[in-house]
């Protein structure tokens, strides 16, 4: 038995992320007590029409999300309670809607920071309608073995330790969320556990007070005693004392009140919950509340520490007098367990999972990414640059400063070749069509292949082949002529020996000034000597130069195109931004740029 929430309570949760988290906790409790999930639906307008997935045991239950309470209760007539998790500025409206719904009998508000006036109006509305409005700032309501509304009770392990899977004999009412959990734990350690525990919230005017719940506990035969945790401020504890003293009550009352420290503090210094404020003229002190409760017959230990023994003493007395019949303990080992997630199971060594992919270059599972094992921030701190990151991620090699300088120059040389080359042109056309950056740049990228930008890979491949095979330049050229065709990386449409490519000259002279051995570049230059002797324009072009140098730096042939893609991305992005900035229009080819080699206009024959 229990009060407020029981095995028939069916909940619509109002709220998104915080609400789903609560639903998960409620699912854990339902799984523990082997009862169906007590959450039926959500109200969360931004996700109306979708479903939220809530774990229940090892399954995932899909719960529908509605725009309004009315829609939820219409679709699920079994709903009779709601738990509110929406923000303070919307919580009042949510509670008003819920109270106005004839199917909902209990509204528990978890939201904190709700204006006091709103809480009073909601309490008044609920009273008028004969419903229960619990909170604001409530941690929730839990009836042992029956129902859990909210996150009250904490994590799964605590539910088991505090024996919340089966009813005991003690009711609990607290303002504080943390202390509700503590009292349930104490009741399970010093007595036989709890029936229902209610967090009424720490605000000045909780929607439902101690007395209302004491009345309900008085009528619940399973509950033999109630523990309340009060605090200075307000007069809810005095009212509880008055209720207890008014006539003979079946239930016993144990209370603990906080706020005695106020007597020793500078005047006016107040703290704790919003409601923990001594009256402006001294009423509602911890002492006056304690006195009132004791006078009415409640057990009020001197300190919180004495609460456990006081509960134990009362429990023994109630057992001896036959009020409580001790129950045989459930074997905790026989209780359902919370299925472990793969993460947890792997951590505890219970399962082994065959990985789906394998990586050898980077890992960001820690507090920052590590490239080939080196933390990014350390690389930055020690003066490493982008070429070093490229070296680590593409070739798992930490470059020297000289090598990095070469890579940097290669990227700078290749960053852009104007708007007319096929990749840039396509990017510009896409930008004009209003396509966004990622897709426009990708369109330009799709042009990279054998005829545009692809020569670097091919040049690298054949120079490497020649050096590996120890071919002479002459033998290499013979081989290429017989088997492949023109040598990739050799030849230029406009540049020649007389009109050399400045970029190539710069790069070669820089590389040659260093102490790094460059067998592929040397070989390529020897080849050039032979080819230019035959024809002025058969120079080692920029693609061939870059290819030879990168192979010399140890980059695998298949990575070479990456330098072109990377470098040219800078240019493509620039072209896209440039077009956007100008607000350029849709580009359409002029008819005079097309050779219409089509048949003359003619009649369409009838379909046969």
């Amino acid at each position, binding site marked *: 038995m229990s009060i407020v929430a029981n095995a028939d309570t069916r909940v619509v949760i109002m709220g998104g992320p915080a609400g789903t*988290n609560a639903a998960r906790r409620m699912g854990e409790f339902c799984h523990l007590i082997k009862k169906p999930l007590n959450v039926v639906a959500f109200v969360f307008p931004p996700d109306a029409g979708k479903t939220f997935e809530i774990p229940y045991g090892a399954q995932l239950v899909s719960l529908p999300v509605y725009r309004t309470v009315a829609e939820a209760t219409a679709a699920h007539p079994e709903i009779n309670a709601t738990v509110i998790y929406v923000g*303070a*500025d919307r919580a009042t409206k949510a509670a008003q809607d819920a109270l106005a719904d004839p199917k909902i009998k209990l509204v528990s508000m978890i939201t*904190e920071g*709700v*204006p*006091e*006036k709103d809480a*009073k*109006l909601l309490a*008044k509305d609920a009273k008028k309608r004969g419903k229960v409005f619990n909170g604001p700032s409530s*941690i*929730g309501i839990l009836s042992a073995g029956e129902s859990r509304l909210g*996150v*009250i*009770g*904490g*994590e799964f392990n605590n539910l088991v*330790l505090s024996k919340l899977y089966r009813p005991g004999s003690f009711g609990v009412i*607290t*303002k*504080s*969320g*943390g*202390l509700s*959990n*503590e009292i349930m*734990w*104490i009741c399970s350690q010093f007595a036989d556990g709890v029936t229902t525990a209610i967090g009424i919230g*720490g605000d*000045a005017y909780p929607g439902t007070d101690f007395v209302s719940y004491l009345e309900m506990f008085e009528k619940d035969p399973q509950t033999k005693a109630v523990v309340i*945790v009060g*605090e200075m401020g*307000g*007069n809810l504890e005095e009212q509880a004392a008055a209720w207890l003293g008014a006539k003979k009550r079946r239930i016993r009352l144990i209370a*603990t009140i*906080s*706020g*005695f*420290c106020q007597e*020793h*503090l*500078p*005047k*006016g*210094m*107040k*703290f*704790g*919950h*919003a409601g*923990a404020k001594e009256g*402006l*003229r001294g009423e509602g002190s*911890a002492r006056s509340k304690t006195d009132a409760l004791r006078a009415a017959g409640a057990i009020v230990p001197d*300190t*919180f*520490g004495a*609460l*456990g023994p006081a509960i134990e003493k009362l429990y023994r007395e109630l057992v001896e007098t036959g009020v409580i019949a001790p129950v045989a303990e459930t074997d905790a080992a026989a209780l359902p367990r919370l299925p472990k997630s793969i993460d947890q199971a792997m951590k505890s060594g219970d399962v082994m999972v065959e990985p789906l992919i394998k990586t050898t270059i980077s890992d960001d599972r820690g507090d920052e990414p590590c490239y080939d094992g080196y933390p990014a921030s350390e690389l930055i701190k020690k003066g490493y640059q982008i070429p070093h990151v490229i070296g680590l991620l593409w070739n798992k090699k930490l470059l020297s400063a000289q090598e990095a300088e070469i890579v940097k120059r290669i990227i700078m040389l290749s960053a852009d070749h104007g708007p007319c080359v096929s990749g840039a042109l396509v990017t510009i056309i896409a930008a004009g069509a209003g396509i966004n950056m990622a897709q426009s740049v990708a369109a330009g990228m799709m042009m990279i292949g054998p005829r545009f930008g692809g020569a670097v890979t091919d040049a690298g491949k054949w120079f490497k082949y020649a050096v590996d095979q120890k071919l002479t330049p002459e033998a290499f050229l013979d081989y290429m002529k017989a088997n492949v065709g023109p040598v990739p990386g050799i030849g230029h449409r406009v540049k020649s020996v007389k009109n050399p490519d400045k970029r190539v000259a710069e790069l070669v002279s820089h590389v040659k000034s260093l102490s790094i051995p460059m067998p592929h570049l040397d070989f390529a230059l020897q080849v050039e000597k032979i080819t230019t002797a035959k024809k002025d324009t058969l120079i080692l072009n920029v693609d061939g130069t870059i290819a030879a140098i990168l192979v010399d730096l140890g980059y695998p042939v298949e990575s070479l195109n990456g330098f072109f893609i990377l470098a040219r991305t800078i240019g493509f992005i620039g072209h896209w931004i440039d077009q956007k900035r100008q607000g350029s229009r849709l580009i359409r080819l002029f008819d005079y740029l097309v050779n219409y080699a089509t048949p003359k206009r003619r009649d369409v024959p009838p379909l046969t």
Partner: protein
Amino acid sequence: MAKVLEGPGMDLFKKWGMAVPNHVVLTSVDQFDPLAQANAWMRNGKLVVKAHEAIGSRMKLGLVKVDLDLAGAKKAVTEMLGKNVGSGLTVSQVIVSEMVPHSAEYYLAVKSVREGADLMLASVGGIEIESQWDKVQHVAIEVGDPALAAEIEAAAKKAGFAKDLVPKVVEFALKLHQCYDQEDAQYLEINPLVLSASGELVALDAVTLLDADARYRHPDWNFTFASEFGRPYTSDERAIMEIDSRVKGSVKFIEIPGGDTALLPAGGGASVFYSDAVVARGGKIANYAEYSGDPPDWAVEALTDKVCSLPGIKRIIVGGAIANFTDVKKTFTGIIAGFRRAKADGKLKDVEIWVRRGGPKEAEGLAAMRALEDEGFNIHVYDRYTPLTDIVDFAIQGKGNP
């Protein structure tokens, strides 16, 4: 509850049609002459100068000067601004208001109660009301209902207001209740309410407490809330309040000079029981603190920083009940980082740390705390099997301390 200083409080009263003395708030004496130029009332009547700060017993500290002419007021402003009033607190604002010559003083207040509001009125005011509390008449106004003029009229008559004054009192009381209701107030007190020479009721001095939670729906609240401690907030308190206002969950911090026991507990409920336990065992608390609602670890770390910086502390109580959803491991990570930094900065010498906690990831969190012992911290760590406040007994009385 959030206290509003006199200047903005008076402005709220004025907004709802209640007469208040003319007033200006100054932060620098340079503002005095231009204001005197712009406001005829400053030049033509007598003035009152008060420190515009949340400081108790301003009269005793010489922070209230009355019956001044313009030159006298300027002198008072000059003397008061920047004045050190002890404990490192200086006056940063003054309020200059007009003296209202009056014959009689009355009392009018409205207070939030569970059912709605308690409207209080008395035909005695000023300091006399303190000894004649039984003369106050009460009118209960249910939340959501309008205040009824007839009921207030009956109470005013019963309170002994002169017959011709009753309609004016009723009108003023209705405005006060409207202000209370519309401004999300929790307590408004006018003492004294006076009858000016021109026969008009004027709110001469006012206490204004508003509901800080309602701030979001009052865009015209252009003031910050003042402390209710009889002293302004310290810079460390303000720093934590600033963090509190922008994080999930909450962190709270109040300094109490002269204490030997610092508190760093979790939860609005448990934190007060820890404070009680320290006092009950003869300790002196050096602060109040609390974190709850699963705040981010950096916010808890900032709070730990402030707690470790409290002067003269012998011990820190890192207490807490069994959390529902606050991640013990994560919040303890913040506390541990704060402890390490404090130690590196030379703090925490001869300071004992006492820990008790339960809740999500309790085993990991407590193990991390225990490991601090290897780093040379004087730390004692207990789990859920040690009752909540027993660590205070161990810490102060040495009882049961293994």
